[in-house]
């Protein structure tokens, strides 16, 4: 049964390599997108932390800033 599934009448190499390439592409794209997201979020956190009291007060008025910091958007 497993041999039959792997071999697929001699077409196994083609079928499995097509599916593997697809899943590997998904994994790569997801990893790149996640890394970019984390990098920008960390940059934001660092910048937000370095604001002086007056600027931080202005920044706090925007809900989106709080949402980025809250981590509710973790993927």
């Amino acid at each position, binding site marked *: 049964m497993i041999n039959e*599934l792997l071999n*697929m*009448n*001699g*077409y*196994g190499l*083609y*079928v499995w*390599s*097509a*599916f593997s*390439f*697809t899943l590997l*592409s*998904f994994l790569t*794209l*997801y990893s*790149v*997108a*996640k890394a*970019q*997201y984390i990098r*920008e*979020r960390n*940059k*934001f956190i660092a*910048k*937000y932390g370095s*604001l002086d009291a007056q*600027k931080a007060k*202005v*920044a706090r008025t*925007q*809900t*989106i*800033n709080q*949402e*980025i910091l809250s981590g*509710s*958007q*973790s*993927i």
Partner: protein
Amino acid sequence: MFKLFEPNKIFSITSKAPKYVMVLFILVLSIGLVEALILSPEDYKQSHSVRIMYVHVPAAWISLGIFSSITLLSLSGYVFRNKNFFLIAKSLAPSGLVFNIIALVTGSIWGKPTWGTWWAWDARITSMLILAIFYILYLIAWRIYEDKEQVLKITTLITIFGIINIPIIKYSVDWWNTLHQPASINIMSNSSIHSSMLLPLMIMTAAFALFSLLIFLMKYNTELIKLKNKGLDRL
């Protein structure tokens, strides 16, 4: 009406959505893989190699759909003077390119046992390669142009030229004598594909669409945080 879609207002939704989309994607993909690799029948002519269709066709469909959406969004951005449309278009492009590459590579793998060659300068394959070039140009333009107005113009122009290629891809198999088979699924008339093959194809298409939604959300959230980073610099 478009004020409802302002980045500040929708971030609370787009930031929470990826984890739910991810769960749904894994679920649908698992069902799709079982259907495509185990439960669906082999073809009477192509035997098991027909299973490549379950990744090749959805990838091609989604890459065409994404490019059409990018063009529509870019034009809408100008018509409605809403920069958010451009941001959505930019966030869609990476998954569109990856699906285009998947369609080309899996098509090539499918070509070897079916046509006896990995590649042919056939109308359908060549026009899909041209689409990949348009995707690359679009993404490169976003990277190299600093001026915001200029990048919006250039990327919109690329999509306008690129969209001309979409009907060519669709009808290339009817207009020219190609190695590539004609469409087996027609919305307007009867499809020539059996339901036992149509079901896994639809499930895999749903899984691929969910994956592109997941990547779109992640890229869109990243773009919004980038904007907010610039906003902090201006404070």
